[in-house]
């Protein structure tokens, strides 16, 4: 009986074992593939990796913004027994300042144990070598390389290139890619406006992770598309020349190829170090930047608004000529003042210029002539001409914070609830009062005067080697009107009694045309003016007039246009004009087409920066 029952039990046992074996077959062989797929999903994690940011070059192929490897020391917290001891020992090899220590203390509370903790960034080769030597005493410390944005020219190009910073909450919301570690966002300049080109496409990496999400290895990697290589129209050598010419002055200068609008130099002083922002800027540094009354953070060349002063006169002339309000030969008399509605408007010359025509009026920069011309042709005509010449309205320069010049009409002023006096029109005739513009607009204006074409200023020469071509169309001004304005500007520099003889070029066979300007920043009290002892040089710096100069050269076949604004420089003729002439000489000498035709001595003298 025992045998029978034991066999019964054995049969049951064999049946159960068989069922289990069958069940195993179902799971592993029949449903194996779908479970295998689940297992694969279990253990892999796809992550995106930040693409390399596009590099920026100048027109000669000089690197302006690149990615530099950033050597940093990390510590794997879980591989150390006593983190504090490791940090202290680390500090004896590579010094840690108070900020580093605070950051380490903060990170160690938030970061998960298997995520490496950053001890110190931007290690030098010396540091790396010393750390390598001391590796045995630093358990868990490892050296890793990330990238940081590098700006070899720092201050020189800070306003144009801008800078990058880690993305903030808003950036991440706008584009999820920004959440990837290592992503940077352009915060100013080309870095900001060309963000789309520079950013690139993120790659993906498929990693094997364990149950706790820790990365165990890499399975597959698809490299991202690095950001586009940008080539700018700038000439860095010229840019640095201009910077040196300006020296300590608070000024801005723009050099433009007046045939196509390529901006070859764009300087605003003083400047700032853009690398401060990528590495994190300290509060004191930031405060000193924003409280400086010379406004280092502002790119005055594109966002500084100044009254154009007398440099506006050729535009008024063109407006009047086009409106057939005057002819080039028509004479107006200047007794040194102009009375209108009980108000006396003065010429800069107390003695007057007599009866003069357009050519002379530009040459002497006679104010009274232009008071009358402005009155005769009206503000609408001046506005239209100024807008055509680029002085009113936005320009397509690839920079953020660019501001538009404005030459308002009575209509526009009234729309905003302001009153318009007849005197406003008169003041506008000499570029004062409500007329405002930027140095970039002035250079554009000079270019358009020089070539008679609607050139648009731009900084981008090519994107990923795709050249950006421009073919500016002619301006709606009759050729002879433009010629009249140009000849007046030629006279300013080259004829006797012109206002800017100091701007004459010291280059054989090359002549320049230009126009001076001095823009008052506050009214001169009548009593002071009439006392005859008024000299603006005696004013405090911030009340002195701005000095302006616009020019183009060569006169017979214009190649470059330059605008210079020296803040509180007092007089365009003495302060801005010589500077502009030096800058123009630099530009012309730098031009490979000219280097052969100019004598060797001239080139050497210009290259050697001595005049």
């Amino acid at each position, binding site marked *: *009986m*025992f*045998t029978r*029952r*034991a*066999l019964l*039990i*054995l049969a049951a*046992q*064999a049946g*159960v*074992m068989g069922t*289990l*074996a069958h*069940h*195993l*077959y179902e*799971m*592993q*062989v029949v*449903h*194996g*593939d*779908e*479970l*295998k797929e*689940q*297992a*694969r999903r*279990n*253990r892999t994690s796809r992550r995106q990796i930040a693409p390399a940011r596009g590099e920026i070059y100048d027109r000669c192929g000089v690197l302006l913004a690149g990615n530099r490897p950033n050597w940093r020391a990390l510590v794997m917290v879980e591989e150390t027994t006593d983190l504090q001891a490791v940090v202290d020992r680390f500090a004896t090899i590579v010094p840690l300042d108070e900020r580093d220590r605070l950051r380490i203390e903060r990170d160690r509370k938030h970061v998960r144990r298997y995520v490496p903790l950053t001890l110190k960034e931007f290690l030098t080769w010396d540091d790396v070598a010393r750390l390598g030597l001391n590796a045995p005493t630093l358990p868990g410390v490892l050296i890793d390389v990330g990238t940081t944005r590098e700006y070899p020219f720092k201050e020189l190009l800070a306003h144009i290139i801008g800078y990058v910073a880690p993305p903030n909450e808003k950036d991440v919301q706008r584009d999820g890619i920004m959440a990837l570690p290592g992503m940077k966002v352009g915060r100013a300049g080309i870095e900001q406006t060309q963000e789309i080109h520079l950013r690139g496409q993120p790659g993906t990496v498929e990693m*094997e*992770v*364990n*149950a*706790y999400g820790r990365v*165990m290895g890499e399975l597959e990697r698809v490299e991202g598309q690095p950001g586009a290589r940008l080539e700018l129209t700038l000439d860095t050598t010229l840019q640095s020349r201009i910077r040196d010419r300006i020296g300590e002055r608070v000024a801005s200068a723009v050099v433009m190829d007046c045939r196509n609008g390529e901006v070859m130099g764009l300087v605003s002083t003083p400047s700032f170090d853009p690398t401060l922002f990528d590495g994190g800027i300290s509060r004191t540094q930031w405060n000193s930047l924003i409280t400086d009354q010379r406004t280092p953070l502002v790119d005055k060349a594109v966002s500084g608004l100044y009254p154009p002063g007398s440099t506006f006169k050729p535009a008024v002339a063109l407006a009047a000529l086009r409106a057939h309000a005057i002819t080039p030969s028509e004479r107006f008399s200047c007794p040194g003042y102009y009375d209108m509605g009980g108000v006396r408007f003065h010429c800069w010359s107390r003695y007057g210029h007599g009866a003069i025509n357009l050519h002379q009026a530009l040459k002497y920069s006679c104010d009274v002539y232009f008071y009358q011309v402005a009155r005769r042709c009206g503000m609408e005509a001046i506005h239209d001409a100024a807008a055509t010449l680029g002085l009113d309205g936005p320009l397509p320069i690839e920079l953020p914070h660019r501001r538009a010049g404005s030459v308002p009409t009575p209509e526009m002023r009234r729309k905003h609830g302001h009153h318009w006096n007849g005197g406003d029109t008169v003041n506008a005739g000499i570029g004062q009062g409500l007329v405002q513009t930027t140095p970039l607009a002035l250079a554009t204006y000079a270019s358009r005067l020089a070539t008679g074409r609607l050139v648009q200023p731009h900084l981008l020469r090519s994107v990923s080697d795709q050249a950006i071509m421009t073919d500016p169309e002619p301006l709606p001004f009759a050729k002879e009107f433009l010629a009249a304005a140009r000849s007046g500007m030629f006279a300013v520099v080259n004829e006797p009694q012109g206002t800017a003889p100091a701007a004459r070029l010291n280059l054989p066979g090359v002549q320049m045309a230009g126009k001076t300007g001095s823009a008052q920043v506050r009214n001169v009290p009548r009593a002071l003016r009439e006392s005859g002892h008024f000299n603006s040089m005696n004013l405090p710096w911030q009340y002195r007039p701005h000095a302006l100069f616009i020019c183009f050269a060569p006169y017979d076949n214009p190649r470059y246009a330059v605008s210079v604004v020296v803040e509180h420089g007092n007089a365009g003729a003495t302060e801005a004009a010589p500077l502009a002439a030096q800058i123009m000489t630099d530009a012309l000498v730098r031009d490979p087409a000219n280097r052969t035709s100019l004598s060797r001595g001239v080139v050497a003298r210009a290259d050697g920066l001595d005049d």
Partner: protein
Amino acid sequence: MPLKDFTVPRTARRLLRAEPNLRMFSRLWQINWFFVLLICCLAGVGYIALYSAGGGRAEAFAQPQLIRFCFGLLMMLGVALASPRVLRMLSVPIYGLSILLLTLVLKMGHVGKGAERWINLGGFQFQPSEFAKIALVLMLSTWFYRIGRERMGNPLRLIIPAGLTLLPVVLVLKEPNLGTATIVGVIGASLFFAAGMRWWQIIILVSPLPFLGPFIYNHLHDYQKARIDTFLHPERDPLGAGYNILQSRIALGAGGRWGQGYLHGTQGQLSFLPEKQTDFIFTMIGEEWGYVGGVVVIGLLFLIMLSSMLIALRCRNRFGRLVGLGIAMDFFLYCVVNLSMVMGVIPVGGVPLPLISYGGSAMLTMMFGFGLLLSSWVHRDDPD
């Protein structure tokens, strides 16, 4: 045999002048070495699997387990040489000790995974419920041996063995360890069955069981109810309570027909698999060696179980038969509960795979049980 054998002074005297039927050397010769070889094979499988579970390092699990196995092997051979008479004499103290330990664990046990299952015995942890199974087998076999087959028909004679079975079952349930309590109960029942309990008695006992189901469920602990719920619907809480079942299924399925290769099971090596060195060791084997490996292990387990049953069947005396069947049943239940558990057939409970899973008390008590089995084999031809 009459009950007077159990008086203490005479027991001691008998032990001292134990008169073996066979000489020591010939007893050793009589040991079923084929069975020992099978057990060594199983331990070998365990070593290989634990080496992998330790991430390719022997020191983690494989080495300590091997040392324990060698110790267990010596104990098994020692027990195998004991005469059944001595074993019968020791059955009461062993049973008493197991009950004492079960009581102790309730009073001062270590809490592991929501249940008191362990007691600390001078440095190493011991799970009394494992030991209780073997003690019960020995106790019931001795009891049924003494009352003989004929008197099994008398229900009054079955009251005491029923109490002897229920006592450890209740104590283990209180720990609470539902899985092991069930195993203890089923072992006891199978011994009642094999010892010759009448069919009408069986029918009377079994018929009310289906109605007890809801009653038992209501008296389960919350974690046990949750276990049953998640077993029925693991997908409801894939990262919580259903995690073990889902991960085990996924890992087994990932093994496929041929496996992912030794030491290359992704789910196991990447810690997705919970408790891969103990309860879920079979999943690890299945993932790395595939269906082929899994079937080989199941086959080996079946072979050991079959050998145990054949040993029981070959025995000429009632005691040896019942001990053999009890041990075979114990081993079988271990295997089935563990395998069903990792395959997701029954709710998860802490039942290891004998001789493969990492752990001391399960292995040592199992080896002790195999010692009893081998002793039955050595004395297979003793008369009743």
